């Protein structure tokens, strides 16, 4: 799964710490999500999308390998 969390967060001039505080998670969680190590739950995805003023689909995109 590809994600654009880092790009959209930087576009919104937010630091990882600020985003983490807004969605009520640790900075480690944001780092893991941005690196693609961790795929967040629907609830957290929607929260992040809400804070960054985008849709969930803009944040995460299915990869070809996700269908295998």
């Amino acid at each position, binding site marked *: 799964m590809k994600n654009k969390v880092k790009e959209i967060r930087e576009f919104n001039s937010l630091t990882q710490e600020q985003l983490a505080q807004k969605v*009520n*998670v640790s900075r*480690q*969680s944001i780092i893991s*999500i941005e690196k693609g*190590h*961790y795929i967040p739950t629907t609830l957290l995805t929607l929260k992040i999308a809400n804070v960054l003023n985008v849709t969930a689909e803009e944040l995460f995109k299915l990869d070809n390998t996700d269908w295998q």
Partner: protein
Amino acid sequence: MKPLKLLPNRFKLIGLLICILIIPSIFLLEYIFRDLKYNPELLKLISSISIIAGFALIIFSKEKNEDEFIEHCRLRAFARAFIVGIVSYIINEIFHIIDTDTNKTIFQFLFNQCLFYFAVFYLLKNNLVSKNEK
């Protein structure tokens, strides 16, 4: 998903203190105060229970920032430690057939499982494991 019911974060410190106090005291009694009269089996029992209890307190208490990612790491570490426990038991039983002196105690299994859990949990938590390994 409902979050796991865990002990408050302060229990982690209590568990850590138990382990820190017990491990050097075993060393002192075993190697330095050897001449003192004490029951070695009783000491072994008390120390093994204390260490496992200390580890359990560390494992079952919350992190400072307990969120879904930490829970995810915790569950993965539990799963891997469980698999390691089963595999090490099978290997031990096979070796026990070949060489009867190599039988491990339950304490050794639990101790190894706890150490493996800590290693996996902190590696996952600190993003030290690459994407492919997860």
